[in-house]
């Protein structure tokens, strides 16, 4: 009897201990596990090993088809579907002027460059046209050139906004136009010194009066000093008429894509979080963006978890840090976001598509695909679903890296791929 109860007690305590100490290993969703920070003597590095697509294609769900509608582009990043169905592609590669401050910057730069295209950025917008609606984009013209690493694109009425790496500019747009009339007008200069994270993401408010510009940090975690971070790691709200700006949300390390939720005024963003804290830290995220919100960078992540690499610390500011809505997984490098609609078919009608460029700071690569985050009642609900995969093959070779994703209201998802310099189009079979 004594022995029995002892065993029971031991068993119970193991059970209880198991319950209490069970680590949260969730990688996705509203409540991801945040493991211990770790960093060996060398950072984990697994760089994409690029090869051509050949006869291969990304894999899409059953009932969907994928085609390359444009190849041979000059580093396509983000796309915009115009009212007449034409597609504008922003092509460019920025950030080359960031000074190499340490031996590490030189070595890491050489290694990481192996995982990206060697093509020079086009600094232009290419227009793709499918005049007869057969899904073949037979028309291709250069809409605008001489831009400076254009990335974010937005259209409101007759104004086409382009976020260059150093300025937000406006071009006039008439329906059906295949070439811009003239040189762009500058709406406002954007923070461009160093440009460690050079991409400037862009969204326009439904009434067209306000523009939102995502500006990435100038470092991984302040290793270029805090002076370099003035006006960085934030989302600006810009008055479209005057160019006046104010910080709309701060502490967002690298807001790489922005979108307004259809039928609302709510701004959503995907953001890339910091590296070198381990394979499952820090989750990149999808979040609705609160006016005046502080999202942690550099002092904390996923709300109020302190990053000890930053000195001096700011506990008072960390106390105000907001937890993002939805973790996409660490190191996936989310670079594109697009709200879906019923044109994409049942399973993929309510939610957002996210383009994931893929990891470098992780032994087991993550990302390298387009996922769908299902929504319910206007909020993310449930696990992300693979939508386009096979960018990194089972052979370990990488054939493409997704960047921008855009919904074509005629019933397609447009995916920019900046490794194979291709624009893909995924359509539900009819």
């Amino acid at each position: 009897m004594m022995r029995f109860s002892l065993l029971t007690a031991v068993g119970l305590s193991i059970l209880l201990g198991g319950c209490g100490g069970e680590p949260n290993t969730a990688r996705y969703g509203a409540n991801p596990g945040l493991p211990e920070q770790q960093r060996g003597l060398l950072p984990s590095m697994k760089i994409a090993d690029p090869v051509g697509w050949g006869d291969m294609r990304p894999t899409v769900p059953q009932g969907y088809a994928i085609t390359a509608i444009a190849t041979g582009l000059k580093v396509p990043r983000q796309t915009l579907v115009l009212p007449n169905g034409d597609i504008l592609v922003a092509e460019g590669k920025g950030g080359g002027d960031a000074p190499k401050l340490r031996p590490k910057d030189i070595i890491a730069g050489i290694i990481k460059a192996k995982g990206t295209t060697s093509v020079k950025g086009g600094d232009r917008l290419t227009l793709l046209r499918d005049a007869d609606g057969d899904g073949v984009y037979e028309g291709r013209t250069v809409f605008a050139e001489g831009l400076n690493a254009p990335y974010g694109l937005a259209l409101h009425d007759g104004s086409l906004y382009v976020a260059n790496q150093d300025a937000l500019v406006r071009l006039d747009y008439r329906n059906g136009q295949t070439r811009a009339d003239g040189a762009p007008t500058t709406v406002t200069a954007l923070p461009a010194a160093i440009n460690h994270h050079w991409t400037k993401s862009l969204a326009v408010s439904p009434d067209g009066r306000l523009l939102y510009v995502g500006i990435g940090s100038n470092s991984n975690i302040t290793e270029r000093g805090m002076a370099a971070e003035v006006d960085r790691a934030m989302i600006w709200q810009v008055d479209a008429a005057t160019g006046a700006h104010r910080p709309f949300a701060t502490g967002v390390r690298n807001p790489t894509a922005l979108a307004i939720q259809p039928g609302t005024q709510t701004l959503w963003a995907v953001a890339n979080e910091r590296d070198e804290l381990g394979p499952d830290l820090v989750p990149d995220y999808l979040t609705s963006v609160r006016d005046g919100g502080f999202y942690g960078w550099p002092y904390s992540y996923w709300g109020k978890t302190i990053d000890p690499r930053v000195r001096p610390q700011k506990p008072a500011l960390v106390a105000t840090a907001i937890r993002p809505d939805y973790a996409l997984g660490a190191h996936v490098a989310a670079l594109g976001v697009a709200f879906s609609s019923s044109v994409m078919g049942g399973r993929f009608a309510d939610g957002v598509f996210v383009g994931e460029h893929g990891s470098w700071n992780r032994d087991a690569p993550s990302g390298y695909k387009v996922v769908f985050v299902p929504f319910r009642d206007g909020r993310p609900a449930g696990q992300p679903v693979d939508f386009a995969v096979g960018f990194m093959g089972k052979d370990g070779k990488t054939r493409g890296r997704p960047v921008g994703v855009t919904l074509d209201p005629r019933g397609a998802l447009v995916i920019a791929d900046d490794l194979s310099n291709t624009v893909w189009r995924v359509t539900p079979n009819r």
Partner: protein
Amino acid sequence: MSISVGRTPTHPLHPVHAVLLGGCVPLFLGALLSDIAYARSYEVQWLNFASWLIAGALVFCGFALLWAVVEVLRRDRRGRRRLGYALMLLVTFVVGFVNALVHAKDAWATMPEGLILSALVAIFVLAATWLGFAGTRTAVTA
């Protein structure tokens, strides 16, 4: 009559070897001082300085080590006496290299390990330099 002061015969370092060895000291010392400055000020530029000073020190230290190892392997009169020096220099290089990797971490992630290693390396390089030059005193002969 003969005076013999036989403690250390003269086998001075080759001048180039001496430059390589001597160069390590201010470079590693500079890295230590830069680390101290960063730890006190949180100004990351000091960390950049430390990274480059360590990298430079490793170049000098590496060539000096190579030279020392070759002398030991040749087992000539210099080499036999310089085994301790070569070992001390090896320790300096290895710990210095680890320190370079630690300094490749971002911002305060280098601390306190970077500062501790910089201090150790500074001591090691002084010891190696002492041993290296110790055999070069001009012996008194008559």
